[in-house]
């Protein structure tokens, strides 16, 4: 079974998010970018499936050259090889353009399964996987809590707002996973060393046969007009509890002032 896992190189979510107000893009300092923690679940799911059924795990990312880092990390976890879709013209791509670039890279691989996370940690539109499924003409099984493959059938427990649904499709298919699929493994030292030598190919748009007008800022249909800071610091009242219960009187007075008691 061949599995392609889409992984994104994102600003470390534990650091504050920065937006460049001039370029109107997120600041992605490569030194502070990591493999999206959500995508580790996709990699983990793929590794478990291949451990059970045999096959190959190919990780795919679209991003600047520094995104190689995310791919190496996924290979350190155990993925076999990587494809980086990288081209100056891709900067500023929206969901549709990103999906087109990833589809062009994945199509020739003819995978049995494409895995994505439900949403990325930085932009979290959650729209990429479905757009990709449409472009690859694959059925999409989403919000998976569990993923099982038997023969050529994939079965997924799809989380809903009130429980879950058991859904099924024939392979090839695209599946998006949630954090419930199981804890991602931590790369071993051996894995980290091996990852350095695993094959990684970089593909530009020309090689993929994607036309310029379909991708990047020129292909983006979603356009950012303006970014403004809204850091609202409420100049609220701060009181320090001094051990006499004084703060409780303050809270009561406040609750009274807003007619809560």
């Amino acid at each position, binding site marked *: 079974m061949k599995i392609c896992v889409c992984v994104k190189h994102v600003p470390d979510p534990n650091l*504050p*998010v920065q*937006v460049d107000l001039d370029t*109107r893009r*997120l600041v992605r300092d490569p030194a502070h970018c990591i493999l999206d923690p959500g995508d580790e679940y996709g990699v983990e799911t793929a590794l478990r499936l291949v451990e059970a059924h045999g096959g190959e795990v190919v990780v795919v990312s679209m991003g600047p050259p520094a995104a190689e880092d995310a791919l190496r990390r996924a290979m350190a976890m155990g993925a076999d090889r990587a494809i980086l879709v990288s081209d100056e013209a891709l900067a500023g791509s929206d*969901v*549709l353009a990103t*999906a087109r670039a990833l589809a062009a890279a994945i199509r020739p691989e003819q995978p049995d399964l494409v895995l994505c996370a439900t949403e990325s940690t930085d932009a*979290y*539109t*959650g*729209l*990429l*996987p*479905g*757009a990709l*499924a*449409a*472009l690859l003409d694959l*059925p*999409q*099984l*989403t*919000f998976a809590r569990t993923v099982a493959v038997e023969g050529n059938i994939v079965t997924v427990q799809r989380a*809903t*707002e*009130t*429980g*879950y*649904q*058991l*859904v*099924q*499709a*024939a392979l090839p298919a695209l599946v998006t996973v949630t954090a419930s699929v199981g804890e991602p493994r931590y790369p071993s030292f051996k894995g980290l060393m091996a990852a350095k030598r695993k094959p990684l190919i970089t593909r530009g748009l020309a090689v993929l046969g994607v036309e310029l007008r379909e991708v990047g800022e020129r292909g*983006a*249909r*979603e*356009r*950012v*007009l*303006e*970014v*403004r*800071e*809204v*850091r609202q*610091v*409420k100049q*609220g009242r*701060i*009181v*320090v*509890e001094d051990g006499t219960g004084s703060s*409780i009187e303050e809270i009561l007075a*406040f*609750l009274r002032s*807003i007619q*809560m*008691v």
Partner: protein
Amino acid sequence: MGERRVWVWTEIASDAPHRLSLELFTPARALGRAEAVVLGLTSEQALEQLGEFGAQLVHYAADPIYAQFLVEPHVATLTSLIESERPDLLLFPSTPTARDVLARLVGQLGRGAIANAVALDYDTSGRLLATVPCGADALATVTLEGPLPHLVQLRPKAYAAEAVGGQTEVCLVDLPVAETSCRVRVIETVEQSAAGPNLEEATVIVAGGRGLGRAENFRLLEELANTLGGAVGASRAVVDAGWVPYRYQVGQTGRTVKPTLYIACGISGAIQHVAGMRGSRYVIAINTDPDAPIFELADLGVVGDALTIVPKLTERIRAR
């Protein structure tokens, strides 16, 4: 140019319109003529209710197939409807199914879409303007280019649902669903106990974080919430620690809430938490660390130990 036609992707949950879909009729009415799209069997009452919230027309496909197979039949029908009816704008709520349908539509139609919008308008030249959060402290104004209809997904609570008391016409959609789009089959639907806080509807939320120390201490929050007629929420740190189930979680990857009063106890105020409670009318924060970021959005900040302050507060309110 006639009035803009604004379609609302309307999901039906236990035979009533989903509350997140109902919210979208408010901007739909403000921006043009509001119409609903309902794919799948539902009751007459549910359709009438859409009229009360401002839908002038419901495109209704009364076919059980939409519950038996996911996404592709919906996208196929929606694509045909868009081609024949030519709406200007489609609004999608932040539900799992709406997201699936919108995402596939983006690839299928080759159209851009805006996700996570918190406000929507047109400028005087008729250009669509959407406000979307961009990091913790910034809002972006974005637009869509290219052919109509424009596709936008809105965050929960971006708008309040308003019953305006109207009647709706129903237009039956009778499009056959091709077998080739029936690929993802629903084998079984399991409802799990819905017990737990109804955070979206609570006017008071008492939320707890890692600062509470242990799972058992959540009882203190339950008691305060009960005396105020509110619900209990939590940060992801304590959900991950297994102190309370996921449905308590407030934040970017949990619930978005807009209560009148939010009392944050032992919560540091990480951006991902704040993303889900920023819209609270009033915020009280109790935290031992005077530099905790949560104090930046508190109307009243109390530097102190939540474990001693909360029970005493409950006691005082009860004694009144």
